[in-house]
């Protein structure tokens, strides 16, 4: 599957590409408006991460171009502007999501995964990690064939981990994913810890392996190694 990153800030674009590419994804980068237009004309992408302010043109123009050419590429807008107007006009032009800078790469990965899942027409709404299966439509978690009762926050945590398998996810990324950063991270460390503790317990009760590793409380990783 191919992803396209349209971002003029070179370092950011490269970080994004290096984080996103794995066994399933290949990443291409366009640093300006013209490169972006060339790329979307010549290939199809599963998902495009699109910066709105580009040298040589607006990201909105690229959205219009995609729409005019009846392309079905998923698009996530990446904008420095946390503006409702921009968000609305972006979504109206066919974007699937809107992410405000600064963001965590794990958040970007989770959102791109969600877009791609939604774009799959063959009803592939199951993601899994070893014996853990998540049905993202029914919002259900199963260990092998056993249903696990999770709270909303625990479900979102697990889904986030599965979207970032075998990667370290920072505590700050988890906090901003779950609560839109309303409170300081100081207060949130304990809360995250409590939620993860409960999640591990519930999975363990269903005979699931313990895959969530903590890195001294500053980050977590879903891994089987």
């Amino acid at each position, binding site marked *: 599957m191919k992803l396209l990153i349209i971002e003029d*800030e070179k*370092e*950011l674009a490269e*970080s*994004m590409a*290096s*984080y996103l590419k794995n066994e399933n994804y290949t990443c291409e980068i366009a640093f300006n408006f013209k490169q972006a237009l060339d790329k979307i004309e010549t290939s199809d992408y599963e998902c495009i991460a699109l910066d709105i302010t580009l040298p040589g043109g607006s990201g909105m123009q690229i959205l219009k171009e995609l729409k005019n050419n009846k392309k079905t590429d998923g698009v996530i807008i990446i904008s*420095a*502007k*946390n503006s*409702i107007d921009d968000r609305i006009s972006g979504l109206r032009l066919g974007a699937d999501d809107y992410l*405000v*800078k*600064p*963001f*965590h*790469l*794990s958040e970007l990965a989770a959102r791109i995964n969600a877009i791609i899942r939604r774009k799959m027409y063959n009803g592939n709404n199951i993601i899994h990690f070893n014996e853990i299966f998540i049905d993202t439509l029914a919002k259900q978690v199963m260990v092998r064939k056993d249903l696990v009762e999770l709270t909303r*926050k625990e479900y979102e945590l697990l889904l986030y981990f599965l979207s970032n398998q075998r*990667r*370290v996810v*920072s*505590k*700050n*990324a988890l906090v*901003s994913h779950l*609560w839109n*950063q*309303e*409170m*300081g*991270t*100081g*207060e*949130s460390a*304990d*809360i995250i810890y*409590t*939620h993860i503790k409960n999640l591990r317990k519930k999975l363990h009760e269903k005979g699931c392996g313990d895959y969530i590793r903590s*890195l*001294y409380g*500053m*980050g977590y990783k879903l891994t089987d190694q």
Partner: protein
Amino acid sequence: MKLQAQYNKISIASSIIVLLIAGAGYYFLLHYVLKDQLDETLRVEQVEIQDFIKTNHSLPPATTYKDQRIEFKKIDKIFPQSFRTLMLYNTEDKENELSRQLLFPVEVNGQYYAASVTKSQEDTEKIIGVILLITLGLIILLSILLFLANRFLVKRLWKPFQATLSSIKNFDLNAPSAIKTEKTIIHEFNELNENIIMMTEKVVKDYLSLKHFTDYASHEIQTPLAVINSKLDILIQDPALNEKNLQNLQAIYDAVDKMSKLSQSLLLLTRIENNQFTDRQEVNLHETTKNIIQELDDWIREKSLTVCNNIGELKVTMNRRLADTLISNLIINAIKYSGRQESILLRSEKKMFTISNPGMQALAGDQIFDRFWKSEYSDGTGLGLAIVKQICDHCGFLLRYEFREKIHHFSIVF
């Protein structure tokens, strides 16, 4: 007082004073001249009588002719001649009349007589009266003319000024339109207009650049922060990192979060200031509060706080996003600065929202709403309460802080 009224007052008052003084002067001068003239007539009569006596050696007949009367009276000795003014009964008009009399001695054949020539002064008085009336009439006429001239002419002269003034009054920095001025031949007004146009253009330009500056600055900060965050996200994947490294990375993460929040908050403050939240609707604060408390449930439970939500059906017309920010900032504040197992009380009266939480000592009431003010326990941006204040000011709500019996009370009166 209006300039025109003030000008009218001065000009009319001064003209009346001048005319009154002139009128009085005129009256006395005229009086003097006419009396002098009357006295002259009496003297001519005296000379005629004296000539008659010299020629005829007898007294002329005492006569009363029209308003002139000549009389003689025997006397013993000579007296100096004199003029006097007196009231005399006029047999013709059958009334007392103001008269002028010349008394002088004459000698006929060794016998002294007191001769008197009397003339009625009534005609003179009449002339003076008419003249006074004309003067008074002139005063009134002049005042009316001055008043009308001021009213219409001056008003017309000031019209371009009024036009400029009303254009300035209607000027709105948030929706700037060019100042409309009237072309006029009056140099001062043209100069005023030119300067006002220049000034407003500059103000609009400065305001826009200032407005955009904070906007741009906040946005421009976001991309470098995104770069830092993304590099941190890559960096923590490195399995060789030890605990010390990770602690340092955590500090950088937190600093980036704080910086991002800071610039978001500053942007929000600027947007409120710039009137960018124009759409308003009826917001039910009961719902708003309930939702916010639900969202913050994790923190409330973590600190084992009791939140008592007694907000009734309190409906306020305002921007929904601002309402959310207003209430959530107050609640977050209360949660942050409450100790474990304490209780937060929210209640509403008719048009008032109050949130209370226990505290050790009063906060500096005059500073807590200032930007970047922080209590010694705060690790936040110092903008939370400033945003609350800004929203209240923007919407015309009254924000109050009180500390009573070891409890902080924040109230908003809508």
